[in-house]
């Protein structure tokens, strides 16, 4: 069935096409855009020398300011998925820093531009600390409030900012012959540096963690990503160069006041640039910024008013969100991919065959004997949602080296217990001990670093990442140096490929997770947590929703891993699967552990039968056996 040639073509297809682009921006560089980009850079670099048109020089200067803003915004919005409507505030902060330093301390404005960057970074870090508590809508509201609050401070803090009167900066002292060149080339330099930063972040562990946060923040935490640290660093990275560009911009405009510098339209222009050009791409924000600024100026020159700016920005925002949600570059890439791969599409079906079912000979084994001291111990755990007691004093232990099952009827609190152990939720009372440490106060990523890995009832892979990226995403620890490490280093890639080989998914390494079937996702999620090299693996319904052959495969893998020394805690409804493999079996009902023991003991326990409404439970067994 799978002769070599077909497989090769299929793999080729899977690697190159059929999947959405924008895996990593570096890929974009190698695409047909390279020549276009090189030409554009050359053109922009030479423009002031070739033409003395101040109108266009001014337009490019402003476009570059917004481009720096959009490249920065891309780090938190494009990579980490946090929408900010307050990015323009950092332009204002930078401008004010330069303005205040020049008028109160003196010196050339250029000297203070780096200070502006530092200040913007500090403010961003502070905002990041507050924003740790806000996601989604709350975060958007926070960024709006932040922008207006900073504007209000600039308006009312007269002693420092001169209020609405604003601050005037000295006009440039260099010869008129050089026009605005120093502004122009400084901004070009800043844009280049921020692009390098953006590119660097995206290709290393830092960027990978941010994308993991964007795709699924809770999941990211459970695979060891220290989300607050990542987010705060991302805020800082997104603001520093914007602050510097703001400083240059303030000097260029020569006048700084709260209305102009913290105008929400600056933020709109930045976010519109990013959305139009394309989130999570390297050049999208730059392309967007140039288009928007050109549109802005042209409409102004052509239409002569009519609140044109608001109509264009507002209308464009509506249109982009509705009809071009991915932005220009990703959409264009898609078309190019489609053009290239048209006619080859039929081969996509190939990937579904031949892999899942590959039998691996592994001897069937009896349920493992419980052994050793408890690796995980739960004491008197409680969790209430409003008036509902989801977990009500659950206590149990998972012996080291065991395959422990946690069963119970629907709504008995199994998944909540998992969430409490994994750290996705915090209990109202009770203790969780793992490997001799009390962990119930620790955040999820620290639990992961200690050796606790878990899967989710409904698989939660990072959908926009490839299979390989998904598997290398977990982090076994945290160290600043780690952030700078390559996203996928050679050693990791080899280890990840071994794990993928183990679960039988190696051929899919470059496929996007969103393209996998449900069963395949389960396998990848298993490989993903194995990357953490955990001591305890918690599986939430590993056999749920997949075909019998695959259930068998997963059972084999669990035994094999157990033989290698991994401890398992499994929540499962498939009784034959559980009873054939697990010892001890813990039974949870109404949030309490009502029984524990071997499969046989538990099955005979009247309390258990009662909890399961008796007949259903007994009927289920012969049906599946």
């Amino acid at each position, binding site marked *: 069935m799978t002769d070599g040639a077909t497989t090769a073509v299929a793999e080729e297809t899977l690697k190159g096409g059929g999947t959405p682009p924008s895996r990593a921006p570096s890929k974009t560089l190698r695409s047909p855009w390279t020549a276009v980009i090189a030409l554009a850079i050359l053109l922009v670099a030479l423009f002031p020398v070739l033409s*003395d*048109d*101040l*109108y266009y*020089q*001014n*337009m490019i200067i*402003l476009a570059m300011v917004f481009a720096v803003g959009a490249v920065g915004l891309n780090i938190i919005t494009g990579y980490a998925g946090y929408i900010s409507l307050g990015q323009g505030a950092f332009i204002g902060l930078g401008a004010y820093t330069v303005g205040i330093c020049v008028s109160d301390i003196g010196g050339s404005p250029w000297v203070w531009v780096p200070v502006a960057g530092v200040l913007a970074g500090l403010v961003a870090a502070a905002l990041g600390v507050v924003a740790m508590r806000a996601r989604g809508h709350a975060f958007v509201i926070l960024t709006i409030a932040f922008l207006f609050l900073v504007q209000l401070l600039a*308006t*009312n803090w007269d002693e420092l900012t*001169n*209020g*609405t*009167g*604003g601050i*005037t900066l*000295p*006009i*440039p002292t260099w010869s*008129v012959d050089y026009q605005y060149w120093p502004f122009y080339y400084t901004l070009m330099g800043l844009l280049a540096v921020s692009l390098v930063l953006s590119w660097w972040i995206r290709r290393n562990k830092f960027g990978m963690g941010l994308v993991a946060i964007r795709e699924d923040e809770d999941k990211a935490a459970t695979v060891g990503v220290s989300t607050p640290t990542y987010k705060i660093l991302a805020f800082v990275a997104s603001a520093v160069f914007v602050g510097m560009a703001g400083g240059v911009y303030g000097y*260029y*405009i*020569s*006048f700084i*006041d709260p*209305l*102009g510098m913290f*105008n929400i*339209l600056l933020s709109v222009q930045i976010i519109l640039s990013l959305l139009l050009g394309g989130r999570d791409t390297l050049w999208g924000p730059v392309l967007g910024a140039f288009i928007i600024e050109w549109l802005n*100026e042209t409409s*102004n*020159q052509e*239409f*002569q*008013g*009519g*609140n*044109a*700016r608001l*109509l264009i920005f507002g*209308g464009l925002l*509506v*249109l982009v969100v*509705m*009809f071009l949600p991915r932005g220009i570059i990703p959409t264009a890439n898609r078309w190019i991919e489609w053009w290239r791969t048209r006619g080859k599409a039929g081969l996509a079906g190939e990937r579904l065959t031949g892999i899942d079912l590959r039998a691996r000979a592994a001897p069937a084994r009896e349920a493992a004997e419980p052994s050793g001291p408890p690796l995980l111990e739960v004491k008197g755990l409680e969790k209430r949602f409003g008036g509902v007691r989801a977990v009500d004093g659950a206590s149990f232990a998972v012996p080291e080296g065991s395959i422990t099952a946690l069963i119970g009827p629907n709504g008995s609190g199994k998944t909540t217990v998992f969430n409490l152990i994994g750290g996705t939720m915090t209990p109202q009372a009770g203790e969780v001990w793992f490997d001799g440490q009390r962990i119930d106060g620790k955040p999820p990523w620290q639990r992961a670093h200690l050796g606790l890995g878990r899967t989710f009832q409904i698989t939660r892979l990072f959908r926009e990442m490839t299979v390989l990226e998904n598997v290398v995403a977990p982090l076994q620890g945290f160290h600043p140096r780690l952030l700078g490490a390559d996203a996928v280093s050679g050693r990791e890639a080899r280890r990840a490929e071994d794990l993928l080989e183990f679960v039988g998914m190696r051929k899919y390494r470059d496929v996007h997770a969103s393209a996998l079937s449900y069963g395949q996702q389960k396998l990848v999620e298993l490989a993903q947590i194995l990357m953490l090299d955990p001591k305890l693996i918690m599986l939430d319904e590993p056999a749920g929703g997949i075909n019998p052959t695959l259930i068998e495969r997963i059972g084999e893998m669990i035994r094999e891993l157990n033989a290698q020394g991994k401890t398992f805690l499994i929540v499962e409804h498939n009784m034959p699967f559980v009873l054939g493999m697990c010892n001890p079996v813990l039974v949870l009902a109404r949030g309490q552990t009502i029984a524990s023991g071997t499969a046989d003991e538990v099955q005979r326990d009247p309390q258990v039968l009662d909890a399961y409404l008796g007949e259903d439970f007994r009927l289920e067994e012969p049906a599946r056996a």
Partner: protein
Amino acid sequence: MHKVFRLLVVVLALALMAAAGCGDDDDGGGGGGGEASGEPIKVGASLPLTGEFSEPGKAARQGYEVWEATVNAKGGLIDGRPVQMVIKDDQSNQNTVVADYNALISRDRVDLLLGTFSSLLNLPASAVAERNRMLYVEPAGGAPELFDRGFKYLFFAQQATADHQGDLWAEWVTNLPENERPKTAAYPTLDDPFARPALEGIEAILSDAGIKTVYRETYTIDNPNLDGIASALKARNPDVVVHGATFEDGVAFVRALRRANFTPDMLYQTSAPSFGDQYSGAIGKQTTEGIFYGVSHTKEATTPGNKAFVAKYREMFGGQEVPEDAADAYAAAQVLEAAVKAVGTIDRNRQIELADWLRENEVDTILGPLRWDDAGRPQGEFLVGQWQSGVPEIILPEAAATSDEIIPEWRPEGAG
């Protein structure tokens, strides 16, 4: 298909709405009378025709256009060449105003520049002109900060900078006989670069004369909690209230005082009372009795050329009112005209000569004679107006006064 259709519908709808809106904006500029001949001299300006400052911006454009028509009817600016105004819209936006003046200088290659409206926009715009060594006479940017930068090409074509707007009135108050002189004063103001300095200037003079400040607060246009302010004023009961305001909040403030049933002995407002019938209509004719205000121009003024200006304005734009901002713009253009005619050049490389001439000479305008210090600050005094029997009158300086009586207090229950 469905999606494409929806896109079309949305785009069409947006475009229609936008087009419906933009329809009423006609083009700026356009040639004036045909009496002058030769290649036109291009005079460039950017004004806030849309956005926050659009009302005064549009009035300023009318002022420039009246001047354009007047000059061309007289046979052009110099060498028999007519004037052609090139007016752009800066949308009340600082980025745009910088872009506009850059475009005027390098793309439209205008010969001369005129200023924009409001200090906020003139600050960045004047820097562009200074950088390009172009004379920059501006009609409406009185914030003192403008003139602290040592610019050589910048001139303000009103009687005084904002911080001196109320000098004449404040001095009149301090010179009142001891028993009529107020003892306490309150200074609520809109946070505005024109209103605030005006109030600070007045407060400096009044407090030097021993009039105690009992209230000084700033509010923003977004959040004019005027009832709260009126209630606070009532509790402090000042003899005189000096209010820094634009039109709407000025009106709303007077009505808030009425609601709180608080009547200070004297009430001075910036800007709002100079809006004529609009003002008396909004607060009620009788309520206006005795309210003081500062103003740069009235249509009744006897300054040279004012009658002709008022007539021309009414001919071109109709209506009875002549906006102060149109007069200010006209005066700025008169200043430019005087300098160009005296020096006899529009050469872009010789504009420093125009500036030097202005520094040394006095120019007659419809606002009265104007002269400047080295930094372009005007050295004159604003007029003081007062509403009397439902009509705005000029009471100070005496030379320009239209009424020889000064009502010593605010009488919101009406005259008599």
